[in-house]
């Protein structure tokens, strides 16, 4: 009788430990996922800012092959970073929206007056510069939404 009582207590303790441990592991994984997503979103945000500066200088100055390569590489980095969010972000629609915004940003920055079409610097009031700034802003808003969506007011 005494043994059964002791055994029952052991079973309860082991089960309790198992449940608490499972919940802790799950919470830690979820926390790491959120942090990873938020860090990646911050990195993309920062890259977009850098790209915007570089793109505005590129279009307003004489053609520079070095800057053109840098712009293409940054766009590629951003695209791949956003793609990799598919693996960790629960809301895939939001990642797809970000992919579209990055495609629009690439189109705005490199669709016209780029590489072999860059004959002379653009005027600072040129519509293309406004289009680039607008596409960069949209991409930044989109990635910020993805970041803060990781931390809803009511956590599950």
């Amino acid at each position, binding site marked *: 009788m005494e043994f059964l009582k002791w055994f029952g207590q052991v079973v309860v303790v082991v089960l309790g430990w198992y449940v608490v441990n499972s919940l802790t592991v799950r919470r830690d994984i979820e926390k790491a996922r959120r942090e990873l997503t938020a860090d990646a979103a911050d990195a993309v945000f920062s890259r977009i800012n850098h790209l915007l500066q570089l793109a505005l200088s590129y279009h307003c100055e004489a053609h520079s092959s070095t800057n053109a*390569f840098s712009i293409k590489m*940054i766009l590629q980095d951003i695209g*791949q970073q956003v*793609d990799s969010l598919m693996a960790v972000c629960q809301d895939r629609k939001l990642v797809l929206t970000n*992919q*579209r915004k990055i495609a629009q940003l690439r189109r705005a920055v490199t669709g*016209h007056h780029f590489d*072999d079409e860059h004959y002379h610097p653009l005027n600072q009031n040129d519509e293309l510069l406004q289009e680039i700034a607008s596409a960069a802003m949209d991409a930044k808003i989109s990635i910020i939404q993805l970041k803060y969506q990781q931390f809803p007011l009511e956590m599950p």
Partner: protein
Amino acid sequence: MIVVNIARDFTRFPVGRYIRNGTTSGEGFRERFLEIPIAKGEHVKVEFDGTVGYGSSFLEEAFGGLVRKLGLKSEVVLSLLTLESSDASICEEVKDYILQAGSRQ
């Protein structure tokens, strides 16, 4: 199916739209790797990874230009192409160019 890896078979530095400004342009890529097989109805898989990145002018001229040059419907061109990239936004953009070029015909 013909497989074309742009970085391996063409250049790691795709630049510009027109061939008059450089052989590594979108027009150059289209003429060398896409026009003949697509005109024959062959399937082509294009792999985008490995280059230093793409400008939209290159992508538009290579793929949108394919629809304009061959006078094919967008759906036909899309059905003959398989696009592969670790940056999905590139594939989406290329599909957009093909559809836009078709809608303007």
